[in-house]
Every structure is written in C-alpha cells, then in structure tokens.
C-alpha cells in the first residue's frame, strides 16, 4: 500500500490518530491507551500485516518522552512509524508489546535500561547492558554522572 492508502485504512480503524509525513516514513501518533489494540491490528490485519518490528526506541524531549516503533511488512513492502507520547517525565510507563512482536522483549529492556521507561506486563524487565545496581538512566537528558567530563 502507498502511504495515502495506509492513512486511509488507519483513519477507518482509529480516527483519533494524527499523522506526520515530513520524515522518511509515514508517522502515526497514537495515545498510550490506544497503542496495544492498534498494534494488534497492524500486526494481524491482512491489509497491513506488519510482521516485523525493526526498531524500537525512545526519545527524551525534556518535556516528555516519545516511544518510537518502526514497522515493516515483507509481504506488502510497506513500512510505517508509530509514535506514542509519554507525559510523565519522571516515571514514564507504557504497556509492553512483546507478546505481539517477540523481539520487543529485548528492545524494551534496552529502553528500560537507558531511559527508565517501565513496560507494563513485560515478562522479564531487567537492565540489559548496565549493571543491575547502576544509578540512573544514562540516555536521559537530565542524567548526572560526576565522573563524566562534559564540554
């Protein structure tokens, strides 16, 4: 499907979604509550069939966090980005999607490790790269490390 067709189809199932086409991918902004059923549809619906989550990351915008999901369909050769805004700057939380895409299990652990986003219902939410007793979350903009030399 082309981006226009994808937009058309998504508007039918989720009228509240907003769009951004300035980047490389068609970006769809959804709310935290709508994410899981929306992702289920994208994964399983024959029209979309996004069976590959090829990137899951997070952005710290200082005023809020933004979860970013890159999806790809090998059958239809189309890809999109789904973004979710997390307003709680201190304890961001969102539901896991690792039952929809298994690969999200590790990707979410990485985001938890470096940004401190808590994923609800995640089966094994531990730090991935850093020590278990590491203080803070290094990729947050307000992270302080007294050993770090900044310019």
């Amino acid at each position, binding site marked *: 499907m082309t981006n226009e067709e994808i937009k058309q189809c998504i508007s039918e199932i989720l009228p509240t979604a907003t769009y951004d086409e300035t980047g490389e991918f068609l970006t769809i902004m959804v709310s935290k509550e709508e994410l899981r059923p929306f992702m289920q549809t994208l994964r399983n619906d024959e029209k979309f069939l996004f069976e590959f989550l090829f990137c899951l990351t997070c952005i710290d915008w200082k005023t809020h966090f933004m979860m970013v999901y890159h999806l790809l369909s090998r059958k239809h050769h189309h890809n999109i980005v789904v973004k979710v805004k997390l307003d709680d700057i201190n304890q961001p939380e969102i539901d896991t999607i690792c039952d929809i895409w298994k690969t999200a299990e590790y990707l979410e652990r990485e985001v938890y490790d470096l940004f401190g986003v808590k994923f609800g219902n995640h089966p094994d939410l531990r730090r991935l*790269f*850093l*020590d278990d007793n590491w203080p803070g979350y*290094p990729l947050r903009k307000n*992270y302080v*490390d007294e050993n*770090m*030399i*900044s*310019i």
Partner: protein
Amino acid sequence: MVDTEKLVFPAQLHQTPDGGFLVTQLDDIINWARSNSLWPLVFGTSCCAIEMMSAADARHDWSRFGFEVARASPRQADLIIVAGTIVMKMAPVLRRLYDQMPDPKYVIAMGACTISGGPFFYNTYSVVKGVDHVIPVDVFIPGCPPRPEALLHSMITLQEKIKHETYFGKDNKAQAK
C-alpha cells in the same frame, strides 16, 4: 638502519683447543630470551584489533620479531595488547585477564581509546578514560587506530625496555650503570 648490536646473542665466545665456552651475564641471557619470545594474548575490543590482526598477517608479519605465538589463554601469554575501547563493564574482565597472566607480564596500550578514552573522552557514562586506571601500562601507542607499523614499533620499544631489566631486584639496568 639496523642496529646490529641488538641482534647479536649477548655472550662472548672463548675458544679452547677442544671447542670453547660462552661467557655471559644471567640478566642478559634472560632478557634476550624473554624479549624475543613475547607471546601476546588474543584480546581486541574494537577497530584497533583489526590493525593488530593486520600486524600479524603476511604483509607486516610480527613473527619476524618473535610475536607469532598469539595465545587464547592468559595463562600462556606474557603480553597483553589492549586494542580498543575499554568500557566500565569490560574493565573488571580485563583486570582479571591481566591477573591471570604469569609474571613477568607486559601491557601495550594501543590507540587513543586505551590511552585516554579518545573520541569517547567527553560526555560518556560508559568508557574507561585510560586503561592505566585498570592495569599498569608499559608502552602507549597513539593513533586512531595506529597503523601496524606503529604497533610493531611499540612492540620493539617494549623489547628494548625488557632488555634493560634486571632479574634480581627492580633496578633499571641503564640507570644502574
């Protein structure tokens, strides 16, 4: 230009009618043996390791100087070339590898990352800013990454250093004279 004095076996031959005997110093003969058979540990953490592999290949051939027996076990190695970035998580592993090596042991810090953290000096939470925070270093070799020739030079410099060691006591022979 080749300094032939460095290549000569460190002993004097005294001819006798039925053969002869060699006169040498224990320090000289031990250092000669040690410096010409340094066995490096197979240890590389990033792109410097690629240059280290190049130094071992047929073009640069570090076997010419006695380094060919790269060992996969620290218990059989006496030289560790720290080739690449050392992160906080790697530091205890490196320390352990170093502790497992039998004495005498030597360390070459290869490249900017191991000297100071290099490109990761500023604004990083994870990189050790200089491998000498973890283990004592004999030779630093700058570069990002250093060419194989530079690595060979550092290894030959290390050999020079070993040739000035004394077996009994810690005095440097060059200083003692």
